[in-house]
């Protein structure tokens, strides 16, 4: 390696070290600009992902058509398909009605958002929603559905925001167990064995607490925290007594891998 190349390597490593010293605000704004720039391409990628997912199903339908191959059966399938589409519309209608009702009941100002993509990294559990600072969304705001807590916003760009899910270890929530005086910190597991299910842990509980499986875990609403009190996080699955404290494993209130619409709590009504 000649001297020029060595100088270039040293220069580049210096740039890397300099970048690592930037404040989280600076890198956050860089990430927000990057998100806006990349957004159209990633949305195309998400549409591609959905198409890949439905490819097998479409092949199965073709196969069935080939085997049956009678006019009557095709007609029958068309009618059935129409019926299922109508059922799907009905289900969507029902879901949106529930969401509207939830918004009307809530004492918080809610911004409805749609999930545009799910996380693409190995180590973090995040989703991307189609609301940004233009819609009043800011960083560290809770994201919920009528079923319970989903997570909180992290990086917010003009028209999009990244939401870290409750199943991520970096999302820490002050929580309480309903019907008891027990309070603790709920976090996700660092390595989720089952990516689709997700599991939470609640630490710093009293060793002698009377906690049974099935008890509701709610946000405690600690001062200066991101989450208001009383939002359902999940249900206790197991409780372990350790040497100094107790630990509960909590099942999230809903399957986070299938939700489509969420609400961002942007303030009080």
């Amino acid at each position, binding site marked *: *390696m000649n001297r*020029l*190349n060595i100088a*270039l*390597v040293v220069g*580049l*490593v210096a*740039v*890397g*070290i*300099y*970048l*690592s*010293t*930037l404040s*989280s*605000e600076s*890198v*956050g704004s*860089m*990430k927000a600009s*990057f998100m806006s720039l*990349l957004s159209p*391409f*990633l949305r*195309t*990628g*998400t549409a*591609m*992902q959905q198409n*890949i*997912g439905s490819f097998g199903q479409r092949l199965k339908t073709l196969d069935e058509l080939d085997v049956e191959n009678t006019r009557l059966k095709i007609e029958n399938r068309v009618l059935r398909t129409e019926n299922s589409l109508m059922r799907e519309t009905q289900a969507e209608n029902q879901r949106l009605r529930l969401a509207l009702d939830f918004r009307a009941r809530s004492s918080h100002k809610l911004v409805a958002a749609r999930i545009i*993509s799910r996380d*693409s*990294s*190995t*180590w*973090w559990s*995040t989703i991307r929603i189609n609301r940004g600072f233009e819609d009043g969304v800011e*960083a*560290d705001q809770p994201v919920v559905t009528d079923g319970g807590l989903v997570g*909180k916003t*992290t*990086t917010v760009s003009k028209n999009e925001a990244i939401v*870290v899910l409750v199943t*991520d*270890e*970096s*999302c*820490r929530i002050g929580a309480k167990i309903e019907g008891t005086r027990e309070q603790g910190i709920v976090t996700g597991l*660092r*390595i*989720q*064995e089952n*990516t*689709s299910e997700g599991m939470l842990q609640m630490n710093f509980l009293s060793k002698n607490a009377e906690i049974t499986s099935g008890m509701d875990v709610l946000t405690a609403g600690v001062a200066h925290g991101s989450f208001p009190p009383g939002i359902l996080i999940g249900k206790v699955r197991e409780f372990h007594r350790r040497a100094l404290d107790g630990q509960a494993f909590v099942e999230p209130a809903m399957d986070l891998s299938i939700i489509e619409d969420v609400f961002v709590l942007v303030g009080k009504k």
Partner: protein
Amino acid sequence: MKTLIDLIALFAGVFLAFVVQHALPPMDDLQGARVVLVPLVFCYAAIVLPFPAMLAAAFYTGFFSDLFYLHIVGGAVEIPMGISIIYYVILGCLASRFRSGPETAKMWMFSVLSGAGTCAFLLLQFLMITWHRGGWEWAGAAAWRILAPGLMAALIAPLFHLVVSHIDNLIPDFSRMRRASRR
């Protein structure tokens, strides 16, 4: 001129690799491991490009990776910006040693480096997260999520090398042509 075309192709390739790996869902049968293509694309560039161009590629790929994987919660950055740049500079320096070798040896080295580079990148992310959050946690799923993408990259690499080197041969090398005409 050829180097410039190669460099632009790498920029486009890395961008495309990010979009494609974002679109591919995790594989539940492999404990949620994901396909990671960016180190593979970079390794190819590092083996093909001259050293200064390789450094430009390392900066671009590293900067892009840092922004793509940046995770800020509660004002804390889990993996600082710049780490990926340093990582790709080191990987590039290793890969560029095989630039002058015979074509077959280059292909196998590219395959090994792609696999090892992918695993090392994921392991680096895991270690950075562990260092930031504190406490050591390990599970079989973590090993799968580190090793399976590396294995997949190593398997894809020979095919990728064949296709891209074939396309590369179709691009006219004007500097080589000029040298030949002078002689």
